[in-house]
């Protein structure tokens, strides 16, 4: 199948880019609303019980979650550096930081899988209590977003290697960076709510 490159002038591209950016930000806002709904549900459920977690339910490990959080936050920093190096035309460092971001994202998911394994082993399951249900729902929803983000970043990296993006036109990368920062920031809220709030 023949492919046709679509060429547009800079002014048209800028206009299209701004519209895409706005659309993407609306998507992120809609995702914030989704998370807010679940967070509200968590706060409501938590405020209606006498003890949290309920007696006999093993809570998630705080310090392990702290380390895992830093793995995710670190990926946010590497993502930012990757973007900056791309903008400045340093492709080698861009690729290095993108790979670091992807590895850290996978590391976070592995840490979460380890945490799930420990909790399930200790008897804290989805149907075991409202604690288990809300914990697995919130962290699972976030973990799914991280998983999608990792796939997106791998795709963007492959596209960048193929020369799809240039130093002047790289909206796919910008969207990837914004999405990854969003996933980081949501975790700041979830970490505070699920682990720090006593």
């Amino acid at each position, binding site marked *: 199948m023949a492919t046709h490159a679509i060429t547009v002038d800079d002014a048209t591209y800028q206009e299209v880019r*701004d519209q895409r*950016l*706005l659309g993407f*930000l609306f998507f992120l806002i809609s995702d914030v609303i989704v998370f807010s709904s679940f967070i509200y549900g968590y706060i409501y459920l*938590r*405020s209606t*019980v*006498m*003890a*949290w977690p309920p007696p006999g339910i093993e809570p998630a490990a*705080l*310090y*392990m979650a*702290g*380390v895992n*959080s*830093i*793995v995710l*936050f*670190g990926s*946010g*920093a590497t993502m*930012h*550096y990757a973007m*900056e190096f791309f903008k400045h035309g340093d492709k080698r460092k861009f690729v290095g930081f993108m790979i670091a971001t992807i590895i850290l994202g996978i590391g976070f998911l592995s840490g979460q899988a380890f945490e799930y394994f420990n909790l399930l082993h200790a008897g804290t399951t989805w149907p075991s209590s409202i604690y288990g249900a809300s914990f697995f729902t919130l962290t699972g929803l976030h973990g799914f977003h991280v998983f999608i983000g990792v796939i997106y970043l791998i795709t963007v990296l492959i596209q960048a290697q193929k020369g799809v993006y240039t130093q002047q036109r790289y909206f796919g990368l*910008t969207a990837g*960076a*914004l999405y990854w*920062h*969003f996933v*980081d*920031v949501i*975790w*700041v809220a979830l*970490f*505070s709510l699920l*682990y*720090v*709030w*006593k």
Partner: protein
Amino acid sequence: MDIDVILRVIAFVGAVVVGLSALQSLVAEWPKKGLDDHVTKIMLALLALGCVSVIFVAFGIFPGIAGPTKG
């Protein structure tokens, strides 16, 4: 050494490194005026806040916030 101590040290060191990187990036990003730049600034500031939260956890200051009155 206790595993919790090791995890707290890793969390603290990581939070300091990542937090400073986020702040440095925020300062570098500050003069930029694009919509995506403004969003990035907010994200980096919140990222730094998350690192502060982890530092507090590593030092045992958090968790120490009382929840709403039960019952």
